[in-house]
């Protein structure tokens, strides 16, 4: 790669003249389609166009000279209507620009050639004003045809300008446009505040002033409320959790629509779910329900509205039965609207979005890490080639019968990263990577966030953030402010160390 770049730069330096001069242009014979007397037209049109190219910036090159620009023209006739098209390329073949003219009879051909010449002259003048143009390599230089990284290369420090030039080019050429978006998404950066402990979940409370946030983060046995402005301010903590309880996640919703949001905290104790619901009142956590036998997760349910969904654990199944929507009435909770999950689906690895036909689709992080799309009947529609997701969060269940095989009295059940579906149907999926992720041993150390849109057949990538050198334990997307709020573990817990976390903000434009 480096060699190629070096060669390109050397070629560019060699090709740059010492000072600006008129551009040598060569007009090739026209290609003619649909006209009677094709051979006559080829050279006639070549000659007409060459003589009409004007201006101080243009000199005509002969057939045996090395031109800086070449113009290839076509003359196409359909019935009485004709079209004159011209394509401008550099001597080395790089596309520069094009122009066309059309007319309704052969009487209009010569005026049309004039108009076409004016357009091309204007284009050439722009190029000339921007700087010298690389000529075609001549045989005597011994240079091979090398793909030029850019057309308009001002004199001077070529190496520092080529890169942005290429990026700018990329911006207007389809898929690569979002490469610029990637850069922008990484601009906001991390809040430089080290937070004690390994955090496992994050959620946002509404109601903060514009530009600020109230964030609830969960550790294994603690909840913290932070106010986020330019930094993070600890507002409240809740640590009334026993040594046998383990927080698996936290979500926020105002289920009963009373204007007061609830915190849904998934907690497991041994092999039983003892989840809780809190509210934040006057800056403090207040329990409103305990010992709920549910996993909680905020899931888009296909109706464009995200709900708190629940699933249960049973004696033999880690994730038992269907996923349900949680209903809150007063301080009591019930479930309705069961959703049958696709194969391998659990409450922690699925999101729902609407297909092109309006029917719901399931997006699932497959146990092997592949992003998989199912229709509502469970048919597998698509699967990614790359792996996504990846979480170090787990709970354990006793497995005495397999102790003989595994050497462990317990087995681990890993959770998955949340996926967020925005109002416009964009699905945001995290990706953790690590060098030591084997079997039940997981240690991720790099993450990035990807966004996709369902095009009816596949998930198209829209953008992704540049990799961050930390394990992502959870994230949220603030759709109002168009910002990703990432909860990252910056130091893993050690034998005697608690570890540390940090929050990164990334703007999505």
């Amino acid at each position, binding site marked *: 790669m480096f060699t190629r770049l070096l060669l390109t730069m050397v070629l560019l330096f060699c090709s740059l003249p010492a000072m600006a001069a008129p551009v040598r242009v060569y007009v090739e014979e026209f290609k003619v389609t649909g006209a009677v007397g094709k051979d006559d037209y080829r050279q006639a049109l070549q000659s007409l166009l060459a003589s009409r190219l004007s201006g101080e910036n243009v000199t005509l090159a002969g057939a045996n000279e090395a031109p800086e620009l070449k113009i290839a023209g076509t003359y196409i006739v359909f019935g009485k209507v004709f079209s004159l098209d011209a394509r401008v390329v550099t001597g080395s073949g790089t596309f520069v620009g094009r122009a066309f003219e059309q007319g309704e009879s052969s009487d209009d051909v010569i005026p049309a050639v004039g108009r076409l010449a004016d357009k091309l002259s204007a284009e050439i003048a722009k190029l000339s004003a921007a700087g010298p143009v690389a000529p075609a390599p001549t045989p005597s230089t011994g240079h091979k045809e090398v793909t030029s990284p850019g057309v308009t290369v001002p004199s001077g420090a070529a190496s520092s300008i080529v890169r942005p030039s290429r990026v700018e080019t990329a911006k207007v050429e389809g898929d690569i446009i979002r490469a610029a978006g990637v850069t922008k998404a990484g601009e906001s950066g991390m809040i430089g505040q080290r937070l004690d402990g390994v955090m496992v979940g994050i959620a946002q409370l509404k109601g903060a002033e514009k530009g600020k946030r109230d964030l609830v983060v969960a550790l294994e046995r603690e909840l913290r409320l932070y106010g986020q402005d330019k930094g993070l301010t600890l507002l409240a903590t809740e640590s009334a959790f026993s040594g046998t309880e383990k927080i698996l996640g936290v979500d926020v919703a105002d289920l009963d629509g009373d204007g007061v949001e609830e915190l849904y905290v998934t907690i497991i104790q041994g092999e039983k779910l003892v989840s809780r619901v809190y509210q934040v009142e006057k800056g403090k956590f207040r329990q409103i329900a305990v010992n709920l036998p549910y996993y909680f997760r905020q899931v888009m349910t296909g109706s464009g509205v995200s709900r708190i969904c629940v699933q249960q654990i049973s004696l033999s199944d880690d994730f038992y039965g269907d996923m349900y929507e949680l209903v809150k009435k007063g301080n009591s909770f019930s479930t309705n609207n069961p959703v049958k999950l696709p194969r391998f689906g659990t409450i922690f690895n699925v999101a729902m979005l609407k297909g092109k036909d309006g029917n719901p689709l399931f997006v699932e992080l497959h146990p092997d890490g592949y992003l998989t799309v199912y229709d509502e009947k469970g048919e597998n529609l698509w699967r990614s080639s790359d792996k996504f997701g990846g979480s170090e969060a787990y709970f354990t269940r006793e497995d*005495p*019968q397999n*102790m003989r095989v595994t*050497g462990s009295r317990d087995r681990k059940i890993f959770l998955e990263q949340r996926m967020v579906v925005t109002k416009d149907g964009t699905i945001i999926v995290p990706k953790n990577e690590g060098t030591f992720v084997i079997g039940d*041993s997981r240690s991720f150390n790099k993450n990035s966030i990807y966004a996709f849109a369902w095009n009816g057949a596949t998930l198209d990538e829209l953008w992704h953030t540049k990799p961050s050198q930390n394990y992502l334990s959870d994230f949220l997307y603030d759709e109002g402010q168009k910002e990703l709020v990432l909860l990252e573990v910056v130091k893993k817990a050690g034998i005697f160390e608690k570890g540390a976390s940090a929050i990164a903000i990334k703007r999505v434009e």
Partner: protein
Amino acid sequence: MKKKLVVLTAAAALGAAAVPAMAFENEFHGMFLTQGITSNMFTGTTGTVAVSQPNLDATKNFVDQRARLQYIAKASDDLKLVTHFELDGRWGDSSYVAGSRNAGYALGGDSINLETKNVYLDFNIPGAPVNAKVGLQGLNDAYKGIFVGNDAAGALLTSKLGAATVQAGWFRFDDARAAGQALGKTTRDFSLLDGSVAVTKDIKVGASYYYYYDDNSSLTGTATAANNVFAGKTNVKLNMLGVNGSAAMGPVNVDGFFLYQNGSFSGSPHVNAFAANVGAKVAAGPGAVKANLLYTSGSKNAAGGDFGNSFISAMNDTSSAYMESGIFSGANTVLLFRGNGYRTSNTDQSLVGDASNKGTGIAAAFVGYDGAVGKVFFNANAAVVANAKKQVSGTYANKSQFLGTEINAEVGYKLYDNLKASVQGATVFLGSAFSGTDGANGYADQPYLGRVILSYTF
């Protein structure tokens, strides 16, 4: 050459037809355990230890280790090959050994000692809600391993239909190992049909039919014959019917089973035996209290070849490692009775080897507390074990049935998510069944064990 090409073409076509177009996944799991042991009972090998003063009067100190590596080749969600290998031995045992398991840990190492635990194909049958596992695989009965919990070669079909799960399988435990025997003629086979229903998320019930056929008379007179109460017998036919269930009620989980055996073998009266268990787990403080009662029926003259009422476990006939079958996963003992909970490596030994207890049966009660606070984990257990039937012959002739009481405890620390270090101690207060094991009325020394364990799993 042409034949080879045809075979290759056919294999390629089969592969192409069987494998959907998607990434091939490599999945690895494994474990490593090493322990330093001091004990007057463990001898650095496996098998039961007969209670006698010569066997218990010296303290043995040694270190052993075991590693297991599991590689799973996933062709798709519906097809995978599972392989599982083991390397273990005792530090200083031998080196430069060719083709010897559990060896190669003396100076120089370099031994050929890789063991194959499992090699099987795991696939879903197209168009049917049936999973098949075919090959050498882990086999667990639905009765906490009381009949079989071991590796076995066979085929197992599993179908999940709503809340119900049905399993049907056939396994070949042994086949004609003596010279001159025709393959498939003198075999030991096991067939199973298990069904279970999750009535609610907190209640599950199951029922089983097992058929065990043993015509392996070739074992007569071999060194390991004594391990199998039916060794040397022909046409052993056992029909088994069982029920099992489990339920969760608030902080309490209860489970239990009843497994009935009925059958016959040559030159013996009808076999009429059973095993029963009730277990409970109650969450308390930072852990849970666990209790299990186990009874397996026995015959009064087991040493004399009477197995009419002896509950039979499917033991391993081919080596002294027969303790790997017929264990009971609810046992919390280290020395008295080998359970699954504290299995470590190939040097585990016990006074009672399996649930059949060589035909005498056992009556046992286990209770313990298992907990964790942060990264510290701990457990403390007690158990009493007795012969189910008073014996009229053999080692226990006309003696008390009471074999002894074990207490053990372990405390450990999770160094990392997957790495644990712990220390464990255990001792057995010998019961009156062992009176006279050191002189006319004396008891042999009290068995004990202390060990430091380092365990890594992934």
